[in-house]
């Protein structure tokens, strides 16, 4: 009971503190996807214009544009920069002290905040791709939106455990933001934000789609824009589940090991 009570409070805390900086918040959730998808739209238009082909890998320009719009939106959701940096900062600066002395775990404290932040951001920034898709008549299967978002939220848990493992490195090494950046860049390719995974040549194509990372961007986006069907969505659920199980098995011992090394600098 007390578990749910405090986690509901963390969830709310994330929303309250982020709304405190309204301007940054709006920019993060709306401004960034607009610019990114603008660049992508220009890019795909140029590719189609210069090749003169009607389709690339079986999909037409509209289909790529729809992908670009939704992918830049989805990529905003399924990435963890802010809270990962904050968590690393807590360990490095000794800010962790104030969390450790309370009857709660660091993991739940940040997971609940992360989900709270992400879910609200999602609801706000969802308006952009929806508006663009409707206005420009891009291919879109509306009934698939809800299951796709469900998959994305499930992916967030997986993503968070990855962040948590990165954070445990901070007990042993200083200034590990580099790991974080490297990981997020790798996800940029593996998730399908960079390019739709289905235009990669085989065997990379199948490998990338079957890894859990594809559930961050490619699977939900491809599913709602009609590039793939429900079987891919289910395989996403499965691969995330396997991923969560595997990462959890490492995460806890890593955390315990880190805490033994912790010196609580600062205060």
């Amino acid at each position: 009971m007390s578990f749910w009570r405090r986690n509901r409070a963390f969830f709310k805390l994330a929303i309250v503190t982020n709304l405190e900086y309204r301007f940054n918040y709006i920019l993060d959730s709306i401004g960034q996807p607009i610019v990114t998808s603008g660049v992508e739209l220009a890019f795909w238009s140029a590719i189609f214009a210069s090749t003169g082909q009607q389709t690339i890998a079986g999909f037409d320009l509209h289909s790529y544009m729809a992908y670009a719009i939704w992918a830049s939106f989805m990529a905003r959701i399924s990435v963890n920069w802010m809270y990962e940096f904050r968590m690393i900062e807590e360990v490095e600066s000794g800010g962790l002290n104030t969390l450790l002395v309370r009857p709660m775990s660091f993991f739940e404290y940040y997971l609940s905040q992360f989900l709270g932040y992400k879910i609200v951001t999602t609801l706000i920034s969802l308006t952009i791709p929806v508006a663009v898709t409707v206005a420009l008549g891009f291919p879109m299967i509306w009934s698939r939106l809800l299951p796709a978002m469900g998959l994305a939220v499930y992916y967030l848990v997986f993503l968070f455990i990855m962040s948590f493992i990165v954070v445990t490195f901070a007990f042993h090494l200083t200034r590990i933001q580099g790991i974080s950046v490297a990981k997020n860049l790798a996800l940029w390719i593996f998730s399908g934000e960079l390019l739709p995974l289905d235009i990669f040549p085989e065997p990379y194509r199948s490998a990338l789609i079957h890894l859990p990372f594809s559930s961050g961007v490619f699977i939900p986006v491809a599913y709602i824009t009609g590039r793939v069907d429900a079987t891919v969505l289910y395989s996403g659920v499965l691969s995330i589940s396997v991923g969560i199980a595997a990462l959890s098995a490492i995460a806890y011992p890593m955390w315990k090991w880190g805490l033994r090394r912790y010196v609580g600098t600062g205060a």
Partner: protein
Amino acid sequence: MRKYWRIYWSFFRTGFIADMEYRANFLFRVVTDTVWYAAQIIGFNVIFTHTKSIAGWDAEKTRVFLGLLFVADAIYMIMLSDNLDKLTDRVRKGELDLLLVKPINSQFIVSLQRVSTSLITNLIMGICFLGYSFAQLPDASVPRLLWLLLMIPCGLVCLYSVRFMISATSVIFTKADNLQFLWHQVYRLGMRPDQIYSRWLRMIVLSVIPVAMIASVPARFVVGPPDWGLAAWTVGWSIFLIWCSSRYWKLALRFYTSASS
């Protein structure tokens, strides 16, 4: 002038000593940037499996473009990026006061004092990749590489000047995080050859937001015959922009002093 070289050398030294302190970070920067380079290369390779060329750029030429992008970006990251990104912070924390009282050009010290020496490995990787992709060009002509000695510095100067003016805006308004943030987004436009963009967008990335100057323009001088008009424009524009940046900095400082007194 000698004095400034000496000062820069000591910036370099202190930067190096500081960077060596954080081994893990050092190694991960290398890993990160390798991933980033790989992503760019993979991205274009995948697209070229479906099409022969994009806006006149085929696979070989695009690789040269990427090589130049890596080299120029590495230089930018080593010398400038960290300084310009943190300028806003420095203003807010009042660190600018300490820099301004030194008997030295304040724009110089503000823009160049932090040298990210850990990224020299990136520069080396970039040069290797550029060399490799240049050798792959069917009509590779070595003398054309001499153009780079002029075009890369000019491109960097253009990019620096505009980026610096954005940072300097933070001296006037103290809160300009969002401008910086938008800059990072717009910078992505420079990661593709400018010819793929529509006419008006090209004009923008070659002038007001000169992100295409960093790699796209120098690449054109390596993969094809020199475009004298473009060369003149790049040199002239870089001189104009750096002049603007220094004027703008002086203007910004007037605001700074009047704001804090």
